């Protein structure tokens, strides 16, 4: 067996050219057979579910934050700040995602407003991540093309551990904010952010830095870390659940396949998780049909599940696959978890990929 050569996951390395040459870049992806009329119903937008969920989210932030403030100084404040942190640093991930797709609300300004708020909470610059997420949907888990592959092979365990509390993410975020505030992009960002959109990047970076500066001033002025416990630090101490959810999306599955049924997971979750995650547990469905809003994903799942691998019954079931897969990839980076299609599932790139495996 020849020695494994680590692949370059950057967007500007040789893997990017290889992906283009192999026909994996901006390629045609598998789409399950569905009727136009059925899809049209599922794609219908509505403000009501997202308004309801956003009001609940904000109310929960206010209540947990308020009780944390009231009990500040004693251990009794801790559980309320844990809740506040999850609502701020984890639930914001799904709001960033859905509103970035502009499918959460029907009304455009509502999507944009919640998107901007969520971006700040989750340490994601809105314009950069809009364009990187666009690329993620074009070239999902295509090495050299997808900027959102959460971990390479072999897995970067240290980064995953540091990012339980977004430590690595925060350092990178801060570095990039400074670069962007000076009117520049990184070479990799320049690969996917159009020139026409770059002024927005620079402006937003300066606004973010101003907000953080104001929080620091408030802390110094008050002689307390409390202001930062509400703005800034929750992006760190509250991020653990979004990593827990986010790792289930693609981690450990196939790379370089043109079939989302093979490189994405759908997982059944309890109602609280689904509120926090805004149904992103239906991740196969989301990638197959990104136009369908979060509140319609369970119906889409029911409509196409016969064509998809069986969903995982829980996040624990997903991690019973993910953790051994990552452990094995430390020794054999070519290894990955193979999703099996049902016998009567539609053929497509999945069948060819499985036959070649």
């Amino acid at each position, binding site marked *: 067996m020849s020695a494994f050569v680590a692949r370059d996951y950057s967007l500007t390395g040789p893997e990017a050219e290889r992906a283009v040459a192999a026909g994996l870049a901006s390629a045609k992806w598998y789409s399950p057979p569905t009727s136009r*009329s059925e899809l049209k119903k599922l794609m219908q937008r509505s403000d009501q579910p997202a308004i309801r969920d956003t009001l609940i989210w904000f109310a929960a932030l206010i209540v947990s934050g308020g009780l944390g403030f009231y009990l500040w100084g004693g251990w009794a404040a801790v559980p309320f700040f844990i809740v506040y942190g999850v609502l701020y640093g984890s639930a914001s991930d799904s709001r960033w995602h859905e509103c970035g797709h502009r499918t959460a609300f029907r009304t455009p300004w509502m999507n944009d407003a919640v998107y901007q708020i969520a971006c700040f909470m989750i340490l994601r610059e809105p314009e950069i991540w809009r364009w990187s997420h666009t690329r993620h949907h074009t070239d999902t888990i295509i090495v050299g093309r997808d900027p959102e592959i959460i971990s390479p092979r072999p897995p970067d365990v240290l980064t995953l551990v540091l990012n339980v509390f977004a430590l690595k993410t925060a350092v990178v975020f801060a570095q990039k904010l400074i670069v962007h505030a000076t009117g520049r992009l990184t070479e990799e960002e320049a690969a996917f952010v159009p020139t026409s959109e770059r002024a927005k990047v620079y402006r937003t970076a300066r606004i973010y830095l101003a907000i953080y500066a104001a929080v620091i001033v408030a802390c110094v002025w008050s002689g307390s870390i409390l202001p930062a416990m509400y703005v800034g630090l929750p992006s760190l101490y509250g991020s653990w659940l979004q990593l827990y959810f986010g790792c289930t999306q693609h981690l450990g599955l196939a790379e370089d396949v043109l079939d989302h049924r093979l490189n994405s997971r759908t997982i059944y979750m309890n109602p609280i998780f689904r509120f926090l995650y805004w149904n992103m547990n239906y991740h196969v469905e989301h990638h197959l049909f990104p136009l369908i809003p979060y509140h319609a994903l369970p119906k889409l799942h029911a409509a196409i599940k016969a064509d998809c691998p069986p969903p995982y019954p829980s996040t624990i079931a997903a991690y019973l696959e993910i953790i051994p897969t990552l452990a094995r990839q430390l020794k054999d980076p070519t290894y990955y978890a193979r999703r099996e299609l049902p016998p009567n599932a539609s053929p497509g790139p999945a069948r060819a990929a499985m036959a070649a495996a």
Partner: protein
Amino acid sequence: MSENWIDAGPADRIGAEDVAPFEHGGRQFALYRTADDRYFATDGLCTHEQVELADGFVDGTIIECPMHNGRFDFTTGEAKGAPACVNLATYPVKVEGGRIYLKVED
């Protein structure tokens, strides 16, 4: 250069507030019907990454690309939401005898 009215098929093959594909001469077009039965036509591929718009979502006079949610006003072709930044070409359309005709330049 000549302009042709091309027969694009029965008008009622396009549902209300919906979009349908049409191919002619190796080119792809998207045909639209609004909720109040007005008809429009644009190039059929998103200007962002050439994804077929006929698989997209119509809301009012907006077509949303099925891959990346880029948006266009199909009555004018104007790009209305990133990642769509370049406008779509539009084409005159008429309905006669229950059939939709598209005017293109050869």
